[in-house]
């Protein structure tokens, strides 16, 4: 999209000469829809999460009834009301907090997921910045947030926050490795780090019906997908890996001292990260914006639809996890990562390599 804007503006005679301004305007114009999408994503995801949890727990969730001011039919306006509440809340900074870092932390966390979104393609053309290293870029950017988490925990000057951020740092840094390694088979099969090429490598069908997605490519890829998805869930701190904000242990973990607007930014980033992890899994293993029926319903608009619906399904699975499983303990989490996930992903890399060598 940035390139598109730059080309567009450069083709207009009277602003052609202001090259640097054109670049900045283009970037801003590409960034606004991302921000909009993140906000809408969080609003929808929070609502869905509440409804999913409610239906799983034999409840109704947010509901609006009667006349007058209420949360709308089936409570659809509930998250909007929550957002307004959060934005208008008193801005509290604890007395003994490290003020500068306290203010900086939500920005870094938000920027982390925002810049990751910049490289995320919704279809062949709809991407803010089209890299030929897209996968690598997103993996790198999605770990920027951990700096913000550590800052938030440290600057709050609260023991719960400190515990939460230390757990989070250990967890995210550890699970980055199996997440990245289990994406390597995708790169091996497609021969590229660009999302476009990865998806193009998955076009067509095997046996006429089954789409040619990487997850169906060979049995090792199923394991790779599973490893990536679980590691991804751990990376975005969702149950059963929600130790950094473990409610029953650490009150709210590294977010304990945050409220209002800043806390809303954490929330926005959390749901954006969920979308990115689920989206990368979709692109890497589930054919990205390709239709599940090969050859039908493909196209730019359908592409966005397929990508978002596949991603939403994976997000739903994450929610399903959250409302089903208890939480792991720190040492169990680390053991799982280093003793099972890391060897597992190496095994998958070797397996996929050998399979490709023999079957091709």
């Amino acid at each position: 999209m940035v390139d598109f804007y730059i080309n567009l503006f450069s083709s207009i005679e009277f602003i052609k000469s202001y090259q640097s301004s054109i670049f900045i305007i283009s970037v801003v114009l590409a960034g606004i829809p991302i921000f909009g999408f993140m906000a809408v994503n969080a609003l929808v995801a929070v609502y869905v999460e509440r409804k999913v949890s409610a239906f799983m727990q034999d409840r109704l969730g947010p509901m609006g009834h009667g006349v007058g001011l209420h949360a709308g039919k089936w409570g659809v306006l509930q998250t909007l009301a929550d957002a307004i509440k959060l934005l208008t809340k008193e801005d509290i900074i604890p007395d003994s907090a490290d003020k500068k870092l306290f203010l900086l932390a939500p920005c870094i966390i938000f920027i982390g997921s925002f810049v990751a979104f910049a490289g995320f393609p919704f279809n062949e053309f709809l991407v803010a910045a089209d890299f030929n290293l897209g996968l690598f870029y997103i993996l790198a950017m999605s770990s920027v947030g951990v700096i913000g988490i550590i800052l938030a925990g440290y600057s709050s000057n609260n023991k719960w926050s400190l515990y939460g951020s230390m757990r989070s740092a250990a967890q995210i840094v550890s699970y980055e490795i199996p997440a990245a390694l289990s994406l390597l088979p995708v790169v091996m099969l497609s021969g590229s780090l660009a999302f476009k090429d990865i998806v193009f490598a998955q076009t067509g069908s095997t046996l006429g019906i089954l789409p040619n997605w990487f997850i169906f490519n060979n049995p090792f890829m199923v394991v790779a997908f599973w490893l990536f998805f679980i590691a991804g869930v751990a990376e975005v701190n969702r149950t059963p890996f929600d130790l950094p904000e473990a409610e029953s242990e650490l009150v709210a973990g590294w977010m304990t001292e945050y409220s209002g607007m800043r806390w809303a930014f954490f929330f926005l980033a959390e749901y954006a990260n969920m979308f990115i992890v689920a989206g990368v899994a979709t692109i890497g293993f589930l054919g990205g914006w390709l239709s599940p029926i090969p050859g039908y319903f493909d196209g730019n608009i359908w592409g966005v639809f397929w990508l978002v619906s596949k991603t939403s399904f994976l997000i739903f699975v994450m929610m399903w996890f959250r409302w089903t499983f208890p939480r792991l303990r720190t040492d169990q989490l680390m053991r799982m990562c280093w003793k099972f996930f890391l060897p597992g992903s190496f095994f998958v890399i070797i397996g996929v390599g050998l399979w490709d060598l023999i079957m091709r």
Partner: protein
Amino acid sequence: MGIKINNQNTHNSSDEEMVLNIGPQHPSTHGVLRLKTITDGEIIKKITPYIGYLHRCFEKHCENLTYEQAIPFVDRCDYIGSMNNDFGYAIAVEKLMDIQVPEKVEYIRVIVAEMNRIASHLLAVGVFGLDVGAVTPFVYCFRDRERILDLFEMLCGARLLYNYIWVGGVSHDFPVGWVEKTYEFLDYFEPKIIETNDLLTYNKIFIERTADVGVIPPEVAISYGVTGPNLRGSGVKWDLRKNETYSIYDKFDFDIPIGTGAMGTIGDCWDRYYVRIRELEESLKIVRQALDQMPRQGDIYESMPKKIRPNAGHIYSRTESPRGDLGFYIESDGSATPSRLKLRSPAFTALSCMDEISKGWMLADMLTILGSLDIVLGEIDR
């Protein structure tokens, strides 16, 4: 700016250690309990429970109240198992006054007490799930507990603090249709235990979190005076309903489930949890038998004394509440008010072994252990 707080809790030890105050306001302390925890990283070095945030002078109040006026206060001690508290208190006063209650009243008391045991264990199980991070079983347990509370509401108008079992009788007879509704509940609830087992008990993560954690060896449990499901979780077959039969518990056929170390060591958190699950089944059995055998006719006020004025003397009587051995010591000087009333709280003794069993475990385990002990602060602080 900034107020310099002189931290009086600074522990005089190496710099590696940190004092962490858990509570009095914390999601997992099950009430207003403060645990001063000395931690080394996430490892627990020492725990000191500080209690008294919910102290309401129960025992002192009782010295100024007549025997019947004390019952609502007894309700408020262990507010999760009010019926069982009332039951224990009524039995103590009746022993002091030599009152023999009619058979129908005995049946009514056993039924409501066991129903309340189910409600209490449901809360314990659900909240324990919440402590290890599983939210959904908690909601399921509360959904079922709600039906018991509805039944109690139909019975005596109150949902939590019943004031139902009185000295020498009960406040109301079963209303019309109550017995049928209770049968309905029993049929409804039986499969729900299996659901809880599927969702939580045999969940791999749950077992990982609870098995082998916070083991109370039988001798430690006995030396600390731990009773109830916590003691039985350690493999000691001790239940006052069987061992010191009171009321009409000898008429029913039920088992005393004990911890077997099925998933780890005998006396770990999983065992304590599973004993409660098994006790749900046993209580269901008792309620069903009692409903079948209960005489439908009879006057529930028959043995109720006009005024309660026991002869001078004292009595110690204990019953099996959902949390264990609930004892009442009453000293009477012949007047209408007890000159001294002492409640022996099972949750208090269970809490006292916290430090012993959670040393060396991690912060997350400590809260698991606390949850598995199923304490009620209302009873500890009184």
